[in-house]
């Protein structure tokens, strides 16, 4: 398919001797927001890391924008237009908010500069107020905002968000959700890993469910919502 941005093809990932992912495959199209759902320890983060170049697969392929990028270094992936927002945010704690953003600034793979600092501050008014603050002193939600903003500074083609709602208060989760809807509205391609299906409902169009290192279900998010059996088996009780 011509508008496929990311295609993960049957990857196996190991940590040391133990296999974490078993033939995981998924596909994300241009402008699509795809949810990767699963319980704690199901293999979501590992999938994200494998795509971002932090956990190279032993078998299988990662194809990004038509190129086989399996096993490339993280910085190469980033330069190809992939922005990764890790599970625990990993903002630079001693740097100010603005410095966190400045470090990440770069042109997109086609030279585009859609996200200058001014626009980031427009989209994230919260960060404008906090720009001089040291990132380590931000709340969890603020750090998550910063991490997403930082990812956008690199003018990515696609965002990888690993559990953006994790550990945040409901009200903060709601505001992150609003932001992601905004991003979806302007056509950003996103792969979002989540435990919390409800969070993804208004954000993602499609979902894959991962469990015990394998993809067990794929559908639209509406289809998933309707499938009580899958949900109770892989996501809740």
């Amino acid at each position, binding site marked *: 398919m011509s508008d496929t941005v990311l295609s993960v093809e049957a990857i196996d990932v190991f940590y040391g001797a133990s296999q974490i992912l078993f033939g995981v495959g998924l596909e994300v199209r241009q402008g699509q927001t795809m949810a990767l759902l699963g319980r704690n320890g199901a293999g979501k983060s590992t999938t994200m890391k494998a795509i971002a170049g932090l956990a190279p697969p032993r078998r299988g392929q990662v194809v990004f924008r038509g190129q086989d990028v399996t096993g490339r270094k*993280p910085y190469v992936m*980033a330069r190809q237009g992939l922005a990764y927002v*890790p599970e625990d945010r*990993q903002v630079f704690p001693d740097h100010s908010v603005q410095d966190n953003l400045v470090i990440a600034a*770069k042109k997109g793979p086609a030279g585009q500069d859609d996200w200058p600092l001014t626009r980031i501050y427009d989209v994230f008014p919260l960060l404008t107020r906090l720009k001089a603050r040291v990132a380590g002193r931000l709340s969890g939600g603020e750090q998550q905002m910063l991490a997403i903003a930082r990812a956008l500074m*690199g003018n990515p083609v696609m965002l990888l968000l690993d559990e953006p709602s994790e550990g945040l208060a409901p009200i903060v989760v709601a505001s992150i959700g609003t932001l992601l809807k905004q991003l979806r509205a302007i056509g950003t391609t996103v792969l979002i890993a989540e435990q919390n299906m409800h969070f993804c409902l208004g954000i993602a169009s499609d979902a894959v469910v991962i469990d015990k290192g394998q993809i067990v279900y794929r559908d639209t998010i509406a289809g998933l919502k309707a499938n009580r059996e899958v949900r109770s088996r892989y996501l809740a009780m």
Partner: protein
Amino acid sequence: MDLDALLDCVTTSSCVVTQTVSGLIVGMLLFLVAAGLTLIFGVLKIVNFAHGTFYMLGAYLAYSVFVGTGSYVLGVLAGGAGMAVFGVVFERFLIRRVYGANVLMQLLICYAVVLICDDLVKIVWGPDFRAMGMPPEFQVPPFFIAGGVVPPFYLVLIAVTLLIGGALGLGLGLTRVGKTIRAAAINPDMVSALGINTTLLYSMVFAVGGMLAGLAGGLAAPVRSLTPGMGFSILIESFIVTVIGGMGSIAGALIAAVVLGLIRSFGTIGFPLFTEGLMYIAMIIILVVKPSGLFGKEIV
């Protein structure tokens, strides 16, 4: 011990001025070397036991360029630039292979480089010492402030080192590259995930560290003797500075270097026979009380 002499000195303006300036000059040149050491450690967690060699080679390079061109400025720049290149080569071909290895392995590699470079210097420049001599433009008599002797050349050196130190501090604090280097010191994986080639960044850190040591060597060349093995005593003192200031902290290195310089200049009056021992004791106390030094963060 000669506490009376020390008391006499600190109550006389001429002595205070003279000894302060002399402490500053000792401290500032030490700072340049220690800054590179601490920077490399902070970012790469590598203890560069070969750092004194950078200083030595910088001095010899500056000497040769000075002899060839007659220009002190060119000599110093050559020392700095040459050691930047040397730093990159050293990182690329040797140190890169022992990232994350046991510190003994790192020590061994650096030790080997020290041995090799000392002998190479002996082969290239000869076994006897070399003296650059004062460049003609600085052959001017000292002037006096409040009765204290202040040599103009040292004022220039202090100014230049402050400038370099300031540029380094500002560069790390304000420029994007500097911010990135500091970020890489804390979380290299994330920096890489933002599209920054950390391998290149590491080479750069070694280049900067090498350049600082090379500049220090070049700057000091007119007043110091150049001998194979001259890097060793500088290395030991920069270690003390680095440990006291906090491994990885540039500001800590600056303060510790100045303090060490002042300890030397006033200590030589008060404790002429045990200044060196005093420094080791200071280092042990700091390590035991606060292993991370005055301004450092502890690495686990």
